[in-house]
């Protein structure tokens, strides 16, 4: 029997992971340093958050914010883990903890121009070589003139 998932605040405190907590409209968010992400996710998984539901990145203008959305089916609750990394940084894959991160990690790394460490297949997922990291704010979409001049 799995232990019921509890608040990420209690779990991370007991595991000794440094984290700041905030409650947004999103839900309960634990902000951890990039180096401690795997330890934090491992602690949360052991405490009953069985599934990684979503993983995405946000280009905030200063850095890239990565968000993991975890769900516990037994306790029917969700929590978020969040970290910030610099542009072009190397992020450590969490697939050993949550295998569902395999493809979303490849996609996020590719579209935000980051490198993956410890991933079994760190190739591009969606685009071909030579395509810039498209989700960065500095990569523009085509202008109206370009479209009209097709």
């Amino acid at each position, binding site marked *: 029997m799995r232990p019921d998932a509890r608040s990420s605040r209690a779990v991370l405190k007991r595991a000794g992971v440094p984290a700041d907590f905030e409650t947004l*409209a*999103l839900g309960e968010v634990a902000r951890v340093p990039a180096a401690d992400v795997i330890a934090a996710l491992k602690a949360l998984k052991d405490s009953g958050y069985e599934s990684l539901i979503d993983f*995405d990145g946000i280009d905030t203008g200063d850095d890239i914010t990565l968000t993991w959305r975890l769900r516990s089916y037994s306790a029917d609750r969700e929590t978020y883990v969040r970290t910030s990394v610099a542009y072009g940084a190397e992020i450590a894959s969490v697939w050993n903890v949550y295998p*569902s991160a395999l493809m979303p990690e490849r996609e996020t790394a590719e579209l935000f121009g980051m490198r993956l460490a410890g991933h079994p297949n760190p190739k*591009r997922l969606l685009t071909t070589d030579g395509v810039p990291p498209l*989700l960065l704010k500095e990569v523009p979409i085509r202008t109206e003139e370009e479209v009209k001049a097709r």
Partner: protein
Amino acid sequence: MSDPRTTVTTPGLLAEGTHDPGTPPAGIKRAPTGVDHLATEHLVINMGPQHPSTHGVLRLLIEVDGEEVVTVEVSVGYLHRGIEKLAEHRRFNAIGTLMDRGDYVSGIHGETAVALAVERLMEIEVPRKAQWLRSLAAELNRIASHLVWFGTFGLDTGGMGQFLYAMRDREAILDILEAITGQRMMFNYARPGGVVADLPVGIDEKIRAFCDTFDTYLDEHHALLGGNEIFQGRVKGIGIIDAEKAFAFGLTGANLRGAGVDFDVRKKRPYDAYPELDWEVPLGSAGDAWDRYMVRMGEMRQSARMIRQLIDGIPEGEHTAKVPKVLRPPAGEIYACVESSRGETGIHLVTDGGDTPYRMHYRAPSIFALQAVEDIVPGHLIADTVMMVGSTDVMLGETDR
């Protein structure tokens, strides 16, 4: 009298590892080939992106040993067209047009997810009638989407008849949806604040007539495909995804419920009219392809049951709340999810107070299902690969986004 083809003349020749070929005489490289010398080579087969059984532009690199799959690599991205990026340049009530084209067989769910996210950020009170109309369109669309899956899943096994029957029923639904929304597939019907139009006059009769016939038709469909012994032989016990594996790969929707996990966004994270309806969540047990088939068939029946309640109990009132033409939600972050035909479709919306989103992430259930495909296919025969891809009901439009 034994069959000479199967009689083993040299004992131990066929028993693996017991045959010692001995030292060959001078000038001969090795002894005449025995069975254990017939090593098989691994071969990489490319399947897709143009393949009738990949349901779109999925590409599979399959490494086979004889007829058995050793490894499989899923290659996606042949339909990557930037829904997330383009949404950053669209106003909030125009994002629905992009979301329709994400999961293009059941567009209404993607629209609803965006609408819910914007409404929750702006704290818009949606009229009760609008919620019911959204649920009505969503359930009609769910049946249409499952019928496409049903038809093509049967095509993968080599059946053609059920495809024609499924398309016949789907056309009946598309006629209704066209009357309600104005389009056959790309509805743009659910907008922040409500829906775009009220029900047209006389459509409720059509919907009731459809519901009356659909239950019988569904039995026929099931008898035609699920009652076929060949089909059962091909899907039972194939591609088992148990609860542990489903959790590990982040599966949602029918793929998760096929493993017996009772999680439906409509029940657990209620939205629109679902809390007021009386329906059940169909569940599987073993998590094989047959269970996923049965769950989806059950979902169609439940959807028809919901549609009947929805059309009977549509409340009076406005079909949309009073919302400004240009929506400017306050700066913030929200996650809204709906139960689409394929699982949990989620929208992570980040706003900065402007009239376009700062960032929109589209959580597509199919990309997680494809990771599970990579895990379950090895060890099966190559012919079963298409069955497993078909049973997870992946949609490449939302995988690539």
